[in-house]
């Protein structure tokens, strides 16, 4: 290190890496196409898998004959449910919220419950041949009536998915605080609405993929997976296959996006492992785009009946919601966690003393619902922020000011909400920053001018808060989660003075490893380039409590790295003090050097310490053990809550229903920022996906349970050409409960856009008095609302 960092000069003790806008280390590799993803991996003798999937939404499998598939040359094996081991476990659910089970296995046994459910799997010398062979598998189906809509599934007499249940309700949840009925009775204004939030999915650039290889002599499985849940995937494999965890190694290579859908443990991971064991060769399966639309968990879909009550002065006094989540056919890995989260976020950032939610998780004949960036938070935000706008409109109040009036004030933190405790926040300061960035008054003036010209400009707000740093472990366990909320980091200084950090969190493009390197570098006084972060291997990386989700990596993972680095620093300091014959308190550690304060010539390098630590224990203080390696655990005392405001300015074409962005501002606060460039990127990407939710993305099904969107011709994701230029503003309110003060930011961007955009469109079309209660708001829905209002319906409601 000395060679690279220079030596002899006074080191800059103030070298601060946390908060620097450093470029991501992985980008040259990724941007030049050199990243090695599952699709780039190969093993000697590897063969390729293809799945036969149910074409029916609901059917019995009367018989299945896969033998003809084996007649095709270079097909090496095929599995159906008949070939599954008798002791094979059902697909695990890690979040146990209900007694009702939806048992499902690697391959469907006697009944399928959604289009896309895996029924058989073929291994062949090429993926082309594997697909050819699928045509030969003969299945005799007995179609059953299907339910494809949550409201239809709740009707008496609806077809049932599980014969031993009396209905299609997998679970219910209730929560209440305060005196809701009293508040409703005394309110000056009460607004009630039915909202429908569409089905979407995470749809990462890289679909899923699995490569399985067995060591037949030791009976050990190595499984590469494009996954967010390294150790959890291993433990699930162990549970299902009945193999001890230490005989399974899960490896996660480069991941081309995940956004929550790879937080799940899928049937394909088990089926591919079993197929590899059967054929005695490594087997790789790459989910293709076509199957990804039905085989990867979907997300979001809910119908919500909600009510908000307020006093004449704009004080919100109560909110209630009946939330019906469309779970699809099975409870997948996280059960109805996202729907639960919608429920408990129903008061958002407001001091609403009275709240009541009743939630039902309903099964339908559709792809199972699961995780997608934001979990249940975008739905809750949409409902609350739409209702707040309705109340503002009823009371003729400014939408920004009514929000300000109801914010939880800074002095009330920690604030106990319906379920969670919010750690900190200065919401009004963040709103002010957003309004200033936007030039709110200027836009209101331009809006008025445009209306005089017959153009429709609108401004829409949405304030969000995000659940991050998920923990603590005991609370998760108590709530039914079969895993912890802690994270473990191993930090090791190598003999050359450089540093290796091992984490069980998975890098899937979010870039948190850069932030960890900056955190570690700052703590140890080395350059971030001299810190390597190792991820993606259950054999070398420490256990992660929860996996890479819930915006935990920077806050919980980062705090674990910080704790380990601090303890390692203490040992380095003690060694250096001994070598320099100085007091540890008098040392300066920076840029890879350790100096005695005020005496630049009395210095050693980290490499000197590294050598002493491993090769020359003779130089260590008496009694000190060799080695420079520390493991620390961080279990957050509670969660950290970043927040912010989305402000959208749109122009609506009242003749076609098209929406054009004129401006888009996000002001946000995610506590201490490790790398602002990465935080900006997280907001940009999340807002882009949120815009997709507001305007474009939808996974509709017909009444027979057939999916209608199965390609990118049907499922419209916004591209760069469809996005506004986001303008960001930051405030920094460090979390008081996380060492380092970081809050997560992974899901912040995606929560607010639907409400902000729909509010903006409604604001633009105020002269027509229209309202929107379903997303996405397509040009057709907008035009239908305008036409329904009638051109003459210009009301007295004009602001």
């Amino acid at each position, binding site marked *: 290190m000395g060679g690279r960092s220079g030596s002899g000069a006074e080191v800059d003790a103030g070298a601060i890496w946390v908060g620097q806008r450093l470029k991501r280390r992985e980008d040259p590799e990724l941007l030049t196409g050199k990243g090695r993803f599952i699709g780039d991996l190969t093993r000697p003798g590897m063969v390729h898998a293809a799945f036969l999937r149910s074409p029916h939404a609901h059917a019995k499998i009367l018989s299945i004959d896969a033998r003809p598939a084996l007649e095709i040359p270079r097909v090496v094996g095929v599995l159906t449910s008949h070939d599954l081991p008798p002791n094979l476990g059902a697909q695990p659910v890690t979040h146990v919220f209900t007694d009702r089970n939806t048992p499902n296995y690697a391959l469907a046994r006697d009944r399928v419950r959604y289009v896309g459910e895996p029924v058989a799997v073929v291994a062949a010398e090429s993926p082309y041949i594997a697909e050819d062979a699928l045509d030969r598998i003969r299945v005799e189906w007995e179609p059953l009536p299907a339910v494809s809509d949550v409201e239809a599934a709740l009707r008496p007499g609806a077809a049932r998915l599980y014969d031993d249940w009396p209905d299609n309700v997998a679970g219910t949840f209730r929560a209440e605080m305060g005196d809701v009925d009293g508040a409703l009775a005394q309110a000056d204004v009460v607004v009630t609405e039915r909202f429908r939030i569409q089905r979407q999915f995470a749809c990462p650039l890289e679909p899923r993929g699995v490569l399985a290889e067995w060591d037949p002599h030791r009976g050990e499985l190595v499984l590469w997976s494009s996954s967010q849940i390294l150790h959890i995937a291993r433990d699930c494999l162990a549970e299902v296959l009945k193999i001890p965890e230490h005989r399974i190694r899960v490896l996660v290579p480069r991941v081309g996006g995940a956004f929550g859908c790879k937080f799940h443990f899928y049937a394909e991971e088990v089926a591919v492992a079993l197929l590899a064991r059967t054929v005695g060769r490594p087997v790789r399966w790459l989910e293709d785009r*076509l199957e990804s639309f039905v085989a990867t968990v979907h997300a979001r879909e809910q119908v919500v009946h909600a009510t908000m009550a307020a006093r004449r002065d704009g004080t919100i006094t109560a909110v209630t919601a009946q939330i019906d989540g469309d779970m699809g056919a099975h409870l997948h890995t996280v059960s109805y966690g996202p729907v639960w989260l919608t429920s408990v976020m129903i008061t958002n950032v407001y001091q609403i003393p009275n709240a009541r939610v009743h939630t039902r998780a309903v099964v339908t004949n559709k792809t199972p619902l699961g995780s997608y960036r934001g979990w249940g938070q975008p739905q809750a935000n949409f409902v609350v922020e739409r209702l707040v706008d309705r109340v503002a409109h009823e009371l003729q109040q400014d939408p920004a000011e009514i929000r300000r009036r109801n914010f939880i004030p800074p002095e009330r933190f920690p604030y106990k909400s319906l379920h969670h405790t919010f750690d900190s926040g200065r919401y009004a300061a963040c709103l002010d920053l957003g309004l200033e960035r936007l030039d709110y008054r200027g836009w209101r003036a331009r809006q008025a001018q445009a209306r005089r010209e017959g153009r429709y400009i609108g401004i829409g707000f949405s304030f969000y808060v995000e659940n991050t740093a998920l923990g603590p472990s005991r609370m998760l366990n108590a709530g039914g989660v079969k895993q912890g909320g802690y994270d473990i980091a191993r930090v090791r200084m190598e003999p050359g003075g450089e540093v290796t950090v091992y984490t069980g969190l998975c890098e899937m493009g979010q870039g948190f490893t850069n932030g960890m390197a900056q955190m570690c570098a700052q703590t140890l006084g080395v350059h971030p380039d001299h810190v390597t972060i190792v991820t993606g291997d259950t054999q070398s990386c420490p256990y992660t409590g929860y996996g890479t989700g819930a915006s935990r990596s920077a806050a919980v993972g980062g705090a674990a790295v910080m704790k380990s680095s601090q303890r390692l620093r203490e040992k380095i300091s003690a060694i250096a003090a001994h070598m320099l014959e100085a007091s540890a308190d008098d040392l300066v550690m920076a840029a890879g050097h350790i100096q005695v304060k005020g005496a630049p010539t009395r210095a050693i390098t980290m490499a000197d310490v590294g050598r002493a630590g491993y090769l020359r224990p003779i130089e260590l203080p008496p009694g000190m053990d060799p080695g420079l390696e520390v493991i620390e655990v961080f279990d957050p005392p509670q969660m950290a809550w970043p927040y912010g405001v989305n402000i959208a300015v749109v122009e609506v074409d009242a003749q076609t229903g098209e929406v054009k962005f004129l401006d888009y501002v996000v002001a946000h606060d995610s506590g201490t920022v490790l790398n602002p460039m990465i935080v900006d990127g997280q907001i940009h990407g999340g807002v882009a996906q949120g815009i997709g939710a507001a305007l474009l993305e939808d996974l509709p099904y017909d009444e027979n349970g057939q999916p209608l969107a199965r390609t990118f011709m049907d499922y419209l994701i916004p591209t760069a*050409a469809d996005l506004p230029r986001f303008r960001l503003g930051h405030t920094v309110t460090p979390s008081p409960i996380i060492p380092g003060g970081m809050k997560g930011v992974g899901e912040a961007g995606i929560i607010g856009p639907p409400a902000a955009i729909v509010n903006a469109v409604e604001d633009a079309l105020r002269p027509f008095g229209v309202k929107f209660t379903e997303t996405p708001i397509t040009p057709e829905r907008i*035009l239908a609302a305008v036409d329904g209002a009638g051109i003459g319906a210009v009301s007295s409601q004009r602001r």
Partner: protein
Amino acid sequence: MKPAPFEYHAPATLGEALRLLSEAGDDGKLLAGGQSLVPLLNMRVLRPSALIDLNGVPELRVVKTSDGNGLSLGAMVRQRTLERDPLIRERVPLLSEAAALIGHMQIRTRGTLGGSLVHADPAAELPAAVTALSARLTVRGPSGVRTLSSEEFFIGPLTTALAPGEVLVDVLFPPLPPGTGWAFVELTRRHGDFAIVGAAALAHLDGAGRVDFASMALCGTGGTPYASPWLGDVLHGERPRAELIQEVGRRLSESVEPDGDIHASAGYRRKVAGVIGTRALALALDRAQGPHRAEVA
């Protein structure tokens, strides 16, 4: 998403391509830019026994003038060339404007004029553009050469008048009177998508500022491009006025017979057909050069 097995042929001449196509019979498919065919192969929606790749046939890539100021474009001319070639931009700017709206640059770099016309997607831009431009489509097959108008060529959604063994060879664009205004306007869910409704319009004004030529075709409003055959009756001899253009919009909405799909219902398409047609016509009139500039609200 791997195609079923097929034979692949890469002929170097049109004659060889025709021979291979005829040998393949009903199961043969021509490969042009592949932007629609290859996804259909990968989804196994189409399972041809043979693919005859036209990318190595130079005579299908020719751009040449014809009829003085007209233009003849080979079927394998890339959409990116339609968008950027100076001669094409000068002679048939409507075609360049339409091509620029197809997909994204990567798609236009592979996609071809002929491929889009033969695929005959009802929402595609180029079929509407060639219809508005009164182009003539030259087709060669076992029984010789025929020339078709676009109304003869497009017979239904994804269906053309091409007989088995026939190849679209080139497209002839007749010359437009100097000063003709043009416009291609479309409504899409996203930039680069197939049109929900698109409109190609041409207009020319006489020395007195009256319309003496107008043409319009819509895409996304039915199985084939809608050619608005009554347009001349409404506009000829008239000075462009807002009421007249609104009248065209009303007639368009009444005349088209769209189908609904996942992106828009038939009713919505019918409604916006008038709006988009009106906007295209207004822009074409605005661009029409002459002693009297059109004054359209």
